[in-house]
């Protein structure tokens, strides 16, 4: 019976994914299913998935990191500018990762050591760092990457880059201590601390990984637009966090956090955006409200399902007896 509880919460995201897919396939009269369109959906989910794999560590711990959008913007902008300034445009690749990592570590430090609530920090940086990006872009200038670097936007480079980071993140999240400890912190931080999990270090690590992924993804974002602009990473944090919750991860994190859910959620959100476009309803207001209402619903249902039915004492007793006999 208790097992069913977990399954119910896990199965809802699949159902909503299929429902969304079927709905838009029918509504778009099959246009959704064209190979070209499907490849667009995959292409546009890439950044969300990369960033999502990083944020998942933070969300698994029960915190949140909504700085990834501005972090991606800042890392990209700074990396391109510094790379050009020192005369090595290609240096932006490692630089983007380093800048992302630094922002992540600072965030982790503020949350773990200074105990600033993570959502408050996120909100502050959402506006603070965006202000900085806008300043750099308006006061200094928008920059363009060199022609050779445009190779970054070809499938032959993009896809291996995507697979590489995702595989690393899956490995760390599912098969190492960092992932397991992160989920333990989300389940019960006191327990984790009392067992001897280095909680502060794990929090900083999670934010660092989240920042690293944002920095890495900024390379793809820069390649997409051939340079930098003020719109880089706008709304990405929302899209990513929504994707993770859409995929069935609980807001409290813990054992409900799984990497596959990032994929599921990111694709669901991209299908909604894409599908609304296909049926001619791509206006911002429609897109935002559809996403908002759907997300509220999914959050509500997963929470209800994971809380489960009330346990009846008799059933438990019988279950225990059965367990003894079996």
């Amino acid at each position: 019976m208790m097992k069913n509880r977990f399954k119910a919460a896990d199965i809802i995201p699949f159902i909503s994914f299929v429902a969304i897919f079927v709905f838009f396939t029918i509504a778009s009269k099959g246009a959704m299913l064209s190979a070209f369109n499907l490849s667009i959906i995959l292409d546009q989910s890439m950044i969300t998935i990369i960033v999502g794999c990083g944020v998942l560590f933070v969300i698994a711990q029960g915190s949140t990191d909504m700085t990834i959008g501005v972090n991606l913007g800042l890392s990209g902008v700074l990396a391109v500018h510094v790379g050009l300034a020192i005369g090595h445009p290609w240096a932006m690749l490692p630089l983007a990762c380093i800048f992302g990592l630094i922002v992540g570590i600072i965030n982790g430090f503020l949350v773990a050591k200074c105990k600033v609530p993570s959502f408050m920090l996120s909100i502050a940086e959402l506006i603070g760092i965006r202000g900085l990006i806008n300043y750099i872009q308006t006061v200094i200038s928008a920059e363009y990457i060199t022609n050779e670097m445009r190779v970054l936007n070809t499938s032959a480079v993009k896809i291996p880059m995507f697979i590489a980071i995702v595989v690393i993140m899956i490995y760390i999240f599912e098969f190492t201590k960092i992932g397991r400890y992160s989920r333990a912190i989300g389940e019960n931080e006191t327990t984790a601390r009392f067992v001897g999990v280095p909680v502060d270090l794990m929090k900083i690590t999670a934010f660092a990984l989240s920042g690293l992924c944002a920095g890495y993804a900024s390379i793809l974002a820069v390649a997409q637009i051939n340079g930098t602009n003020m719109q880089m990473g706008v709304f990405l944090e929302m899209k990513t966090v929504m994707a993770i919750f859409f995929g069935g991860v609980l807001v409290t994190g813990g054992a409900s956090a799984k990497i596959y859910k990032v994929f599921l959620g990111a694709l669901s959100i991209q299908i909604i955006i894409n599908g609304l476009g296909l049926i001619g309803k791509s206006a911002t207001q429609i897109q935002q409200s559809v996403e908002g209402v759907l997300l509220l619903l999914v959050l509500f249902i997963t929470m209800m399902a994971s809380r489960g039915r009330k346990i009846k004492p008799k059933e438990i007793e019988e279950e225990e007896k059965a367990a003894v006999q079996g």
Partner: protein
Amino acid sequence: MSTGQTILEIKGLNKYFGPTHANKNIDFTLKTGEIHGLIGENGSGKSTLISQIAGLYGHDSGEMILKGQHYDPQSPIDANDHKISMVMQELGVVGTLPAGMNVFLGRTDKFTKFGIINKKQLNREAQAIFEKWDLPRVPMNKLTDGMMIETRKMIELARALSVDPDILILDEITQSLSLNNRRKLVDLINKLKEDGKSIIVITHDVEELIEITDTITVLRDGAVVGNVMSAETTPDEIKQMMVGRAMEGGYYREDMVPEYGDEVVLSVKNVTVKGEIEDISFDLHKGEILGFCGLSDSGIHSIGKAVYGLSKLQKGTIHLNEKNADIKSAPQALRSNMGYVPKDRDNEALMIHASIRDNFVLPSLTELQGPIAFLSPAKLSRLASETSKQLSVKMTGIGQPMDALSGGNKQKVNFGRWLAKDLKVLVLDCPTRGVDVGVKAYIYSLMKQAKKDGISIVLISDELTEILGMSDRLFVMKDGKITKEIRRDEDFTEQSVIGVMI
């Protein structure tokens, strides 16, 4: 009101919490002008019983009759309206509100005129309650955050008295009071008795209970096992009822000689944790069970935390000889083959919504790592299923969430996961809290085995019988300091301990 009439009668009360049957067919009678003691080990169901009387929980079956009428309180406020109030063991006050406000919280409407609370009047009335019952003075306008536990308890007591109760329930209130205030409390109880009110008292202290009460009801494993007149009983009789027959014969250690190696495994020197413990020093030997006993706020629980590196030491060192290192953090303790079973199983020890497997492997992850930090899921599952089979944990599978297990089985997981490791030091804080007799016996046998295997154990418990039954040496603590050390072959009796404990 004349005394001696039945004011509250309870018949066949049952209460379940998930898988635990917390109250089994409880019958209970309370008379006017009676001071009625309730006693039983942790998890025996006494708190559950009074919580139902005070309207905190509903009951699943059975009946309560108050002054001849059916009584089924829907909330603590409903109970207050029936003139029943309670000072709860683990509740407390709202720190963000001033003391006076705390006394009347939830009932501020009666001081309200045109929507505005008359603060002066409220504080005056609160003050009047303190004066009427001769409680120590408390600044009414001050936030309760930062007040001492004892002061906070007094505010809670004033809150309970403010409804002018016919039945006052005191749950473990004495253990957080100083001697002076304990006396005041006893006077207060007697004054209430003279007025024909009834009082239900819960305390762990058997002698104290016999001294202040008229009648005592003993509970064990959720059921009433005895009902005696305080004047006609002895502490031994009560204790016998509390622990039951299963207690005798192989339950605890039978030998009366301390037995441990000469090698000092862990030495604690002059450890002070601000506001908790002061200048604590002791050596823990190989294969030794070292007991710590004292009242709940005597600092015994802080010892466990400090030894496992969870507290910020103001002074002193905790030295692990094998590694020749001072323990400064919990992660370091975990790396150094130490283990810790905290007191509060559901909130501090286990991830109750996670699976049994996840709970099992948590302390062992470092040891289970393969090359490039790889954690093989198969390996984790094997550890969890093998150990839980050894411990005969009753479950449907290791994927089952923790909260589906009974208290005893949860504790088996909590305890057993440490034994799966190659431990040197194990810190146990109330390891048998809230488990039934069978599991209790099993946990003691595990402890004996661990001792035989050379593991050194720090055993902290508020159950004296347990400490006396298991330790090689014991330390009695009071007010954050060690007041006495007794070896197993010395005067190893409750009397000698209680004398210095209180």
